């Protein structure tokens, strides 16, 4: 059986979760690999959530928030942007590929964009291969 990556998606309630819902109402088909966890704001993203996901067998983590300037809570997405870039540096040191963690801005009207991002991320992670396998062979993995 071909490798089907598991991706955990953290979506902010106001823009990205609504955007993902719109993809559904518009019946856009996209890869079934993303499992969404709703947060009120992408600013709620604690780095441990990402590490926990990898620890529990996720092959990728997608974080989506409102476009810069459009945050429902004014500036939560800016804080996420900074946290994610710091976290990416740490993940690199742990030998985790950059593409396994992705931050994207998706507005409430961008259902199509959300679908495209999920498809693209799924494709890239398929190319990278499973995260768990890397754990077994290389031993380089994150422990949250």
């Amino acid at each position: 059986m071909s490798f089907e990556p598991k991706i955990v998606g953290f979506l902010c309630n106001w823009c990205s979760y609504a955007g993902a819902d719109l993809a559904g109402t518009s019946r856009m088909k996209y890869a079934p690999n993303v499992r969404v966890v709703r947060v009120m704001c992408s600013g709620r993203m604690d780095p441990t959530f990402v590490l926990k996901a990898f620890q529990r067998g996720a092959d990728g983590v997608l974080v989506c928030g409102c476009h810069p300037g459009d945050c429902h809570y004014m500036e939560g997405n800016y804080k996420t942007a900074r946290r994610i870039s710091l976290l990416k540096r740490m993940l690199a040191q742990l030998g985790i590929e950059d593409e396994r963690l992705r931050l994207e801005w998706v507005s409430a009207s961008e259902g199509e964009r959300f679908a495209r991002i999920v498809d693209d991320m799924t494709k890239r992670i398929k190319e990278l291969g499973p995260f768990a396998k890397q754990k077994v062979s290389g031993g380089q993995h994150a422990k949250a």
Partner: protein
Amino acid sequence: MEDKGIRIGVYVCHCGSNIAGTVDVKEVVEFAKGLPSVVVAKDYIYMCSEPGQNMLKEDIENHRLSRVVVAACSPRLHELTFRRACQEAGINPYLFQQANIREQCSWVTENSDSATEKAKALVAGAVRRVYYQEPLETREAPMNPNTLVIGGGIAGIQSALEIADSGHKVYLVETSPSIGGHMAQLDKTFPTLDCSSCILTPKMTLVSSHRYIELMTYSEVEEVTGYVGNFKVKIRKKARYVNQDKCTGCGVCQEKCPFKVDSEFDAGIGKRKVIYTPFPQAVPNVPVIDAQHCVYFLKGTCRACEKFCEAKAIDFDQKDELEEVEVGSIILATGYNVFDPSPLYQYRYGQLDNVITSLQFERMVNAAGPTGGKIVLKDGSTPESIAIFHCVGSRDENYHKYCSRVCCMHALKYSHLIKEKTGAEVYQMYIDMRCFGKGYEEFYKRLSEEGVYFIRGKVAEVTDRAVTKEEEGKLIVVGEDTLLPGVIRVPVDMVILCVALEPQPDVEAIARLFNISRGADGFFLERHPKLDPVATTTDGVFIVGCCQGPKDIPDSVVQASAAAARLLAMISKGRVEVEAATAEINEELCSGCRVCNNVCPFSAIAFDEEKKLSHINEVLCKGCGVCAAACPSGVISGKHFTTAQILAEIEGVLA
């Protein structure tokens, strides 16, 4: 997972075939039965229906459930429905969790097996999460009965009057010197051919004399703080340089002012004085001085208006004033802007004479307009033939993809007015005739019988290069009639471009000011396109009229009244529910590092100097959770989105 006597019920909805057509709901139910702490799992055709909810309530009692998971549509649709059902059956509404297996699963997945797998994962996530959920108390705050309406067009006027008629105070803010909006610029209204200002001006007068409406024209909102029920809004009243209390509206200043500039109200085809009211029926009837063009402000001379003003109302030293108002809710009625057709080079707008926009034609045909209602060419003569182009900037991949909804109808109206006033030949260059409203199709039929030519096809270009004798001195419309073979050339005297309705140039700034979203078309986004077209994602902020999308006058009025009704319901209840899912600091463990103090965008966290601890003001907290993620000691919990709950959900979806 430790067992604290937690008993979870899981309900999987078929949603007819919307979910069950793709997801094997029976398999999901069987899977759910095997999850820890789940004591009952069932499927049902429509969980949101009354029998569905009753089943839920009965199970809560019979199985002594302490937590409930419903796997159905998006929580954005029915979370409240099921929370309420739980509450009615005696469970705290925050002990409910919804798994979105429709919008984010069955509708977006082609393969039935992978949709079922995904649904199982989402249900497992919800079950693990709900285990850690805690009961919360919804809090209530008093509702300030005052309302702020922004925009004084027909939509804003309608909302303001409806609310004020109930005896509640309304602040109506308008950026231009007078209320009236675009409707005041129109001549007749379709399909009844009522005179636009005849039906509008009585309403404008009502606004100005209403004891419950405080009108602030030539004013703009600068800052908005607070939340539903208790907003604080800073409004800048721009300097008019005319004392509103002293001015009698006699108009002498406008007569004596020696300088003229293009009139915005006349869409550039007429002139106005530098001290002006936009139109004779302006409300309030108090002029403003356009400081950008006034010779006194530019060179320090003139002061003619001051000299002739008997009421001594001219005040060159007037400054902008800031006023703060407190309101419970806000209605945005900021309207639309008309598309500038200059980028459509092929239509030669701004280059050839007698190529005008629909709004310019409205002003020309209006008896109070610059030509006194005469339809004339640049040289003063009467046109013998006129072409009207539909969909200029609308239904166009390069500009606006949407249909502007009013152009077909106003193009028909123009045909009638042209026929009536000049007897000229009229050519309608249309793509599709969209006459959807009450009496609209009948109006189309009537015009077809008045001898108007309908040519189906998008015009390729307008040119003044004549190839035959009849074309000399004319504007030649070149295009294709898709109902007939070959290219057509129609020589006419005048071209009217029915331009698109587009979002206001400052729409982005307004959206940010009020913290609301915009759709792909740039207009403000409603909370739900069908079931909640007047509310926004920010509680207490409503949108009416064309700022939500192009619409005609009846639709704007309907929406304006709908928002007023929603608002009056809130006012009569007198209280508003405020977010229960706020953040909380465990004071025992807080180290007082103050990291959270600075990350809070609402300044809801303050440092208690005495205890050397941070403290969250629950009234100001909006529950974004940014502090919970930032706290280095991990002692801030975002209620209903605690770290334990989110980690459990992550484990669940990956199990």
